[in-house]
Every structure is written in structure tokens, then in C-alpha cells.
């Protein structure tokens, strides 16, 4: 089992529904967010290009955050989902420094918090909250180890890229052009 996400940037309108859905689903405190939207624009008027990226923890295959965690609070569960056990976290910030994507932050309670791929929903066979609300259906979630899953097919057939591959983390969120 290898959970991953594929996001079609040719459809995303950057509405941030994924961000607010995550907030209400996961009780993310106000002023914080586990996911966010980035706009990328290139060119000169009128020869322009623009797309949005919904970004979050990449649930990397090679996890600098888990590696640097001194207590084992940051860990990997079934399907490659990177999680933080809040009651083992001492709030040292090592994982925040280690993450090239700024995906982790200190929860006001002190522990480190981040995207969980909504593992509580995934366990029930549901999509993560962000994927399930997206009005443009530009987000897809599934198992990469299953060659017949929608996400496997999308990644096989569509040109795609990942974020900051040069950081060597092998991210598992794929952006489809």
C-alpha cells in the first residue's frame, strides 16, 4: 500500500476549498493551515501562463522529518502516511527545519502538527477532506501500489512533476500538467 495524491493543475482554480475543508475536518486552529495554495505565473502580457498548486505535506518516501525526530513522535504508518504522535512530540522543531515544504508547524498547544492525509477518513474508505470537497475534482487520492487505481493510471498517462525534487525527499504528491 502506498498512498499518494495527484493534482491536476490545468483544472485547479485556486479557490482554497481544500484549505478550509482541512481546517474544519481536522480542527486546525484559526491562523494555521495544513495545506495552502501557491500561484505560479510566467511570461509577459499577453503571452502568459499561470497555474495554482494546492500544497501540503508530500508524505515523502525519504522523510527528513521522521529521520531528524529525536523521540519517534514523527513516524510513518501503513500506506506511507507521515504522522506525528502529539503526546510523544517535545516541540523541538527539528522536523520543521528538516521539511523543505514548510508543511509542519507548531500547534498552539506546542506539539508539531501537519497533514495526515486524513488517515481517519482513509481508514473508513473515504478520500481525504481536501480531495472530497474540491469543486473542480482536480485532486485524486489513492494507492500507487495498485496498478489499476485511478491515481496509478493518472500518473502513468499524464505528464507530471513533484515539488523540490532536488531536496531528495521523493515526494508522493504529483502535479499533473
Amino acid at each position, binding site marked *: 500500500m502506498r498512498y499518494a495524491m495527484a493534482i491536476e493543475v490545468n483544472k485547479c482554480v*485556486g479557490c*482554497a476549498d481544500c*484549505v478550509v475543508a482541512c481546517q474544519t475536518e481536522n480542527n486546525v486552529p484559526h*491562523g*494555521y*493551515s495544513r495545506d*495552502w*495554495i*501557491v*500561484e*505560479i*505565473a*510566467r*511570461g*509577459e502580457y499577453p503571452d502568459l501562463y499561470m497555474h*495554482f498548486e494546492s*500544497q501540503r505535506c508530500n508524505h515523502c518516501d525519504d522523510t*527528513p522529518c521522521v*529521520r*531528524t*525526530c*529525536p*523521540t*519517534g*513522535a514523527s513516524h510513518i504508518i501503513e500506506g506511507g502516511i507521515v504522522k506525528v504522535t502529539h*503526546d*510523544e*512530540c*517535545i*516541540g*523541538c*522543531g*527539528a522536523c*520543521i*527545519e*528538516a*521539511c*523543505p515544504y*514548510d508543511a509542519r*508547524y*507548531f500547534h498552539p*498547544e*506546542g*506539539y*508539531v502538527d501537519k497533514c495526515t492525509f486524513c488517515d481517519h477518513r482513509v481508514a473508513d474508505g473515504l478520500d481525504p477532506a481536501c480531495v472530497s470537497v474540491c469543486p473542480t475534482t482536480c485532486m485524486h487520492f489513492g494507492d500507487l501500489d495498485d496498478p489499476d487505481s485511478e491515481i496509478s493510471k493518472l500518473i502513468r498517462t499524464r505528464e507530471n512533476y513533484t515539488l*523540490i525534487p*532536488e*531536496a*531528495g525527499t521523493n515526494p508522493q504528491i504529483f502535479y499533473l500538467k
Partner: protein
Amino acid sequence: MEEKLLVTAREIHGLYPHVHIWGFPIATYLFLGGLAAGILLFATIYYIKGKEDEMPFTVKIAPLFTFIFIMIGLLLLVYDLHHKLYVWQLFTTFRIESPMSWGAWTLVGVSIFSLLWPLSYIDDIEEYLHERGWKRLDWITKFIRTLEHKCKIFRFIVLFFRKHRKKFAYILLFLSIILGIYTGILLSAFNAHPLWNNSILGPLFLTSGVSTGSAFVMWLSNNKKERTRMSVIDMALIATELFFIIHMIMGMQAGPEAFQQAAHLFLGGEFTVIFWVFFVGFGLVLPFILEAMELKGFHIPPALPAILVLIGGFLFRMIMVYAGQMSEYPL
């Protein structure tokens, strides 16, 4: 024109506008850790080489301070934790890949030994304090003596340590090397920050730590010979540091864009002046010149180059902690 911008508000403290989780406490902690490692390295090596009496301050007195430094460092570290109540979780596991975990365990070891080490030199410490004219601190030695007198277990531990001091010296030497390396590689383990993510940073921190250790001895030793010997060693260390720094920046310049941007922080960016003038100029080159002049017979107050090196070492860690967090891969 190319734009990359955050559409949704994400003004999270510590992340916005760039990662800023670590600051003064961590930099100080790294500085004190490096300093302690440097002092203990010299103390144990000279002890093992049997030069206890030639280098009295280095071997017998200086380790007393390391315990204090490490305690301050640990307090700062705990202060900097955001989930303090759970700090004990550090000691429920050992994570072989986590520098923080290495550090936590090493510090426990080092702190125990750096406490026991001076306890076994209580007479020498008393003498040193008197020589320095720090009679007000007599209560420390008096307290320890009373404790030794009244508490059997304490006496037993101290005696046991004195008896096996040589064996413990080897253990402490090993621990201090780990501590020195750890304070160096702690930052370079975070490859999300191109500035930290290079193989020279570790050796550079280690060298700098040892250099501050030698400076500390130069500053507070009452023994002229000891000071001179340390001064020579320190000059070699400073030269090595300068070599590493040039090498590191050239390496980053030759790297991919994110690394070039990291180097730019020191080459025209916001850390240029503080790095080259205050750290390299006043913290490395100037003390090097002063030490060289003193060797040539000029009269230089021994504390001056030493303090410059110490301030430089602290500044270096501050710069690296702050600049490193500003060096990021683009969104």
C-alpha cells in the same frame, strides 16, 4: 517575469515569511556545547598524555566550567521546546538518525562526567580560586567537602572516579568528540536549508568549537606556558577555520541555484557585513594577528584575543542559525 506567490494566507508564527523556529537559545546551546567539547577534549587528551601538571588549568580546572556550560545549554534547549511537559520523551528512545537524539543522550553522559571530573580535583580547584582571588567562591569547595564528609554514597562515587580516572578519561574523550561533532552536524543534517546542507559545516563547527575551548583556556589560565601552547594551537585552528569557510562558500557558489542563493546571503546579502567584518574580521583574523604578535613578544593582554575568539564563535553560530533558516528552496 515569473511570480510564485502564496494565495492563501499562511502567516503562521515560525513559518512566515520564512522558517524561523530556532534563534538565540539554539545558537547559544550550540556555542556552549562546542565550547564544552573543546575544553573536555583538551582536558582528557592532556590527562591521558600525562601532562596534568604542565597544563593544570586545562586538565584540572576548566572542566569545572563545562558542567555549568552544559547545564545552561540544556536549560536553553528545554526553554526552546514548544511542548516542554513532554521533554522526558527524549529519553524513552534512541533515534540513531536523529542528531537531536544523539545530542540528548550525549549531553547526559557528558554532564555526569564533567561533574565528576572536577570533583576529583577539589584541592586544585581551591588553589586556583585562591590564586585568582575568587575567595568568595570558597563555598563551592567547602560544600563539596562537607558533602563528601557527610554522604557516604557521594564519597564512594568520588573515590571510585578518582581511582579509575584514566578509564573515565577515555570515555569522556569519546563523548566530547561526539559532542563536538554533534554540535557541528546538527545543522547540516537539515537538507531543507541549502546553507546548512554541506559537508564542510560539520568540521567547521567542530574546529570552531575546539578553538573556543582553547581560547577559554588562554583567557583564564594562570600558567604562562599553558597559555602560549594554547595560543599556538588556536592559531592553527583559526587557519583551518578560514580554509573551511572559503572552501564552503566556493562549494556553494558552484552548486545549484538554491545553494548559490545561500552563498549570496554572505556575498552581498543581508549577512555580508556581520559575517565578514564581525565574525571573520574580529572573530578570526584579528585574534590570529594578536596571538601572532604576542608570540613575537609584543605585549598583548591575554584575555583580548581569547574573548574575541569566543565572541566570534558565538556570532558564527548565531549567523548560521539565522541565515540557514532564511536559505530555503523556492515554494
